C-alpha cells in the first residue's frame, strides 16, 4: 500500500518530462534560424526561455533539435532491451536449465565486449551521407540486452521458476494470467522497466559524448545531420565560457540541465515501476 | 565438577513494544539432559541464546543474571542489564571465546544452518580449532568425529548441499561437539524430520553427549521425546502480557 502511494509522483515526473521532450523533438526545426547579431550571447532574460548563442540563435532551437536527434533512437533502444529482457525472464520460467545457461553464456560473451569499442566500429561504418544515432542505439541495446535478460531471468528464478508456475496452474489460472500478469506485469516489470530506462539514458549520453568528441575535432558528428545541433553543442559552446572566458555560462547551464533532466527521467521511470 | 554448567536467574527480555520473557530461570547440570519446553512464543530460543551470552533484541536484557559456576562465580550479565545494544554487543564479544569450547550450539534444520560454500571437513576443522587444547592431528579428529555421528569419512569433502537432511543434521551435531564443549544446546533438532529420523537424531545426540561427558540442553516441542529422555525439565510459562502468537 505504502509503495503504491509513493509511486505516482515519480510516474508524473517521468511522464511530464517525456511529454516535454517529445514535444521538443516533434517541433524541432530542420535548420537553425539565421544568426541575429543583436541577440549574440543573449541571456535567458533577454531572449526567453533559454537565451541565445554567440551568433544570436535561440538556444530553444538547439534544445529541440538535440531532442529530435536522441528521441527516436533512445526509445527504440529502450524498448528493444525491455522486450528482450521479458523474453529472458519468460524463458527462465518455461525452459529451465538449458535456456538459463544459454542466456548466461550470451551475457558473459557479449558482456565482455567493451561497448564503446563496438559502438565506434559501428560509427565507422555508418554511411556518411545518412548519419543517424539509430544504428549505434540499436547496437548499444543489443550489447546491453543479454545482461538485462540475465537479470530478468534471475528474478524469475527467485520467483521459484517452474514451481511458481506450477502452483498457479494447479490453482486454476490460465497461462496468460500466470505469465502475462503474475510473471511479467507484477514481477519482471520493475527490473525490465528500469533496464529499459537505463538504456534510454545511456543512449542519450552516448550521443552527447560522440557528438562532443566530433565537435571538439571540428568534424561532422556520426549521430546527426550537419544541419542539426546536438545537446553536445551546448556543452561545447558552454565549455568555452570556463576556459576562454566567453560569456556563455547560460549555454553550459542549459546543457547540464538537459543532461540532468534525462537522468531524472530515467530514475523516475525506474522508481515509478519499482517493486513493492 | 558437580557445579552447574549454566545458571540463569530472573531473566527478563524486553522488545520495543512488549516483554518477551519475564523472570525465567534455568539450571543445567553436567552430564545431565535438561529439556526446555513451553508453549508457542514463550521464548525458548531466546532463553537458550541468552544463556550463551547472545542477546540480539533491543532494548533487550532488563533483568537477570547469567553464571557459569563450573568456570567461576562471575555474573556475565553484570553491567549488561539495562545497558542496551552497546552493552549487549560487549557481552557478545566477551563470551565469544566461551561459545564453542564451553557451550556449543546445535541448530535445527541443519541443511540451511551449515555454511553452503565450505566442505563439512573444513567446517569441522574450524570447530576443532576452537578447542582449549589443540589436537595432534586435525585430520584424525575430523575422521573420528564423522565416524562418531555415523557419517563416512568421504563426507568431509562434501558440501552441505550434497548431504540429505538427516546427514546434514548429523554433520551439524559433529560440528557442535567438535570443540569438546562442556554443554551442548540443541534448538529443536527434530524440526522438519520424520518420526524415524527424529528419534535417531535425538538418540545420537544423547549418545554423543555422553561420550564427551557434556551436558545437554534440549529445546523440544515433542512431549513424547521429553518424557522419555530428559533428566530435568524446565517449563517456560506462556508468553507474558497476553501476547497472541501469529
Amino acid at each position: 500500500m505504502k509503495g503504491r502511494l509513493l509511486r505516482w509522483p515519480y510516474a508524473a515526473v517521468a511522464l511530464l518530462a517525456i511529454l516535454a521532450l517529445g514535444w521538443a523533438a516533434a517541433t524541432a526545426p530542420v535548420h537553425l534560424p539565421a544568426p541575429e547579431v543583436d541577440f549574440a550571447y543573449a541571456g535567458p532574460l533577454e531572449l526567453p526561455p533559454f537565451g541565445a548563442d554567440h551568433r544570436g540563435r535561440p538556444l530553444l532551437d538547439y534544445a529541440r533539435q538535440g531532442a529530435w536527434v536522441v528521441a527516436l533512437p533512445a526509445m527504440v533502444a529502450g524498448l528493444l532491451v525491455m522486450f528482450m529482457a521479458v523474453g529472458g525472464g519468460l524463458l527462465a520460467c518455461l525452459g529451465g536449465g538449458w535456456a538459463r545457461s544459454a542466456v548466461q553464456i550470451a551475457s558473459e560473451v557479449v558482456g565482455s565486449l567493451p561497448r564503446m569499442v563496438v559502438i565506434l566500429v559501428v560509427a565507422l561504418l555508418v554511411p556518411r551521407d545518412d548519419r543517424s544515432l539509430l544504428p549505434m542505439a540499436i547496437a548499444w541495446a543489443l550489447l546491453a540486452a543479454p545482461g538485462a535478460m540475465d537479470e530478468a531471468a534471475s528474478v524469475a528464478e527467485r520467483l521459484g521458476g517452474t514451481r511458481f508456475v506450477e502452483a498457479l496452474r494447479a490453482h486454476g489460472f490460465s497461462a496468460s494470467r500466470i505469465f502475462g500478469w503474475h510473471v511479467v506485469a507484477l514481477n519482471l516489470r520493475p527490473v525490465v522497466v528500469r533496464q529499459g530506462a537505463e538504456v534510454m539514458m545511456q543512449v542519450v549520453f552516448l550521443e552527447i559524448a560522440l557528438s562532443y568528441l566530433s565537435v571538439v575535432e571540428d568534424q561532422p558528428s556520426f549521430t546527426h545531420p550537419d544541419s542539426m545541433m546536438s545537446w553536445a553543442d551546448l556543452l561545447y559552446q558552454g565549455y568555452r565560457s570556463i576556459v576562454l572566458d566567453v560569456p556563455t555560462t547560460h549555454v553550459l547551464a542549459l546543457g547540464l540541465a538537459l543532461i540532468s533532466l534525462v537522468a531524472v527521467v530515467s530514475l523516475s521511470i525506474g522508481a515509478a515501476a519499482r517493486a513493492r | 565438577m558437580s557445579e552447574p554448567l549454566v545458571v540463569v536467574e530472573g531473566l527478563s527480555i524486553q522488545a520495543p513494544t512488549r516483554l518477551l520473557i519475564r523472570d525465567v530461570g534455568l539450571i543445567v547440570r553436567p552430564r545431565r539432559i535438561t529439556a526446555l519446553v513451553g508453549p508457542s512464543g514463550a521464548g525458548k530460543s531466546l532463553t537458550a541464546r541468552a544463556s550463551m551470552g547472545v542477546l540480539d533484541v533491543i532494548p533487550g536484557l532488563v533483568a537477570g543474571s547469567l553464571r557459569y559456576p563450573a568456570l567461576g562465580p562471575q555474573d556475565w550479565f553484570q553491567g549488561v542489564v539495562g545497558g542496551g545494544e552497546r552493552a549487549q554487543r560487549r557481552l557478545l564479544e566477551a563470551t565469544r571465546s566461551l561459545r564453542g569450547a564451553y557451550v556449543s550450539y546445535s541448530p535445527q534444520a541443519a541443511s540451511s544452518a551449515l555454511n553452503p560454500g565450505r566442505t563439512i571437513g573444513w567446517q569441522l576443522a574450524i570447530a576443532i580449532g576452537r578447542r582449549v587444547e589443540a589436537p595432534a592431528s586435525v585430520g584424525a579428529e575430523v575422521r573420528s568425529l564423522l565416524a562418531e555421528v555415523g557419517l563416512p569419512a568421504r563426507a568431509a569433502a562434501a558440501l552441505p548441499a550434497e548431504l540429505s537432511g538427516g546427514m546434514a543434521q548429523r554433520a551439524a551435531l559433529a560440528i557442535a561437539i567438535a570443540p569438546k564443549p562442556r554443554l551442548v544446546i540443541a534448538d529443536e533438532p527434530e524440526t522438519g524430520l520424520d518420526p524415524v529420523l527424529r528419534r535417531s537424531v535425538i538418540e545420537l545426540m544423547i549418545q554423543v553427549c555422553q561420550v564427551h561427558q557434556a551436558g545437554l540442553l534440549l529445546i523440544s516441542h515433542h512431549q513424547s521425546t521429553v518424557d522419555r529422555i530428559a533428566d530435568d525439565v524446565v517449563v517456560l510459562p506462556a508468553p507474558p502480557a497476553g501476547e497472541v502468537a501469529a
Partner: protein
Amino acid sequence: MITRPTWTDEAPVVELIDLHKRFHRAGAWPWSPRQEVHAVAGVDLRIAPGEVVALVGQSGSGKTTVSRIVLGLEEPSAGEVRLEGQRWSGLAEAQRRAQRVHYQYVPQDAMGALDPQQSALEHIEETLKVLAGLPRAEAREKAAEMLSRLGLGSRLHALPREMSGGEQRRVTIARVLALSPRLVVADEPTSGLDPDRRESVLEALIANLPPRAACILVTHDMSEARGWCHRVLAMIAGRVIEEVDLSVSEPTHPYARVLFDPWSAPLPRGLLADQGCPYRPDCPLVTAEVAHLCATTVPSLQPLPRGPDGQRVACHALTASSSSPPPSSPPSSSPSPAPTP
C-alpha cells in the same frame, strides 16, 4: 477429535485405481548412479465427500507423488484417477483447467507459491475475481472475510516477505478455501513451520473446509494427523501398509506404529526388501511360520481378524488366519494426549 460429517454411502470424490508411478531419481550422493524408483506401487483409494484422509510416510514413501497425481500435476505410469466419477488422469491440461477450480492444492512451499508482489488480500481477491467470477468489490469483501476467518484480519495488506511462515501458509489455504473446492490436497501444509504453529495451521485448514469437500492431507508425522482426519494411510516404498481410524484404534503394523510414536518400537534401519514385504528386514513380527510368505509375496491390505471396522493392514503376520490375536495392544506408557481442537 474430528467431527466433520462424511457421506460414505455416496459416490466417492476421489477414486484411485491401482496407481503406479515410476521415475528416475539421482542418488543421495552425486557419485551414486541414477536409479529407477517405483515411487507408487499399486495404490487403491476411495475418499467420500466430507472425508479427510491423511497420507503418512517418511520421505521417499511416495505420498507426495500420490497427491500430485491426484491433482494431475503428474501422470501415473499405470492405473487411473477418477474425480467425482469422471476420468481425470490422462487428460490434456486444457481439459483439466476448467475443473481445477474445484480440485485445489495447498503446496508444500508456500513462499514459492505466493506472488511476492501481491498482498494477502490481493491474492484472494484475484482468485475470487478471476476464478470465481465475482465482481471486484464483492471479491474484495469476501477475500477480507476469508482472511479474517483464518486469523489474518490484521495482515490484509502484508506482502509475502513480510509474513511469517505460518501466515504465508494461511494465505495459501485461504486462497484455496475461497473457491469452495470439492477436493483439497494439502502437501505437508505444516512443513518448515515452528512446531508450535503447526496445530493452528492444520486447524485453520480443516475447520474451514466446505462441508462436503474431501481432503487429502500429506504429512510425515502421524501424531500430527491424529485428531484432524477420519482415516490415516501409512505408506512405505510406494505402498499403503495400513489404513486406520485413529479415533477408534491405534496402528498395528510395526512400521505404522513407529511413524505414530517413534519411541514405541525399535527403530527401523531403513533397509527395504526388493521382494516380498518391503519392511521385512526391519520387521519384528517375522516368525518362522510366515517367513517364507513374507519373503516371497507382497502383502495386500486385509482387515484385521477381530479388528475394528475399516482398519486394514498389509502384513502376513497380523492378518494370517492362523495367527494369534495381534501382539500389539497400544503402547503401555501412555503417549501424551495430542491437543484436540
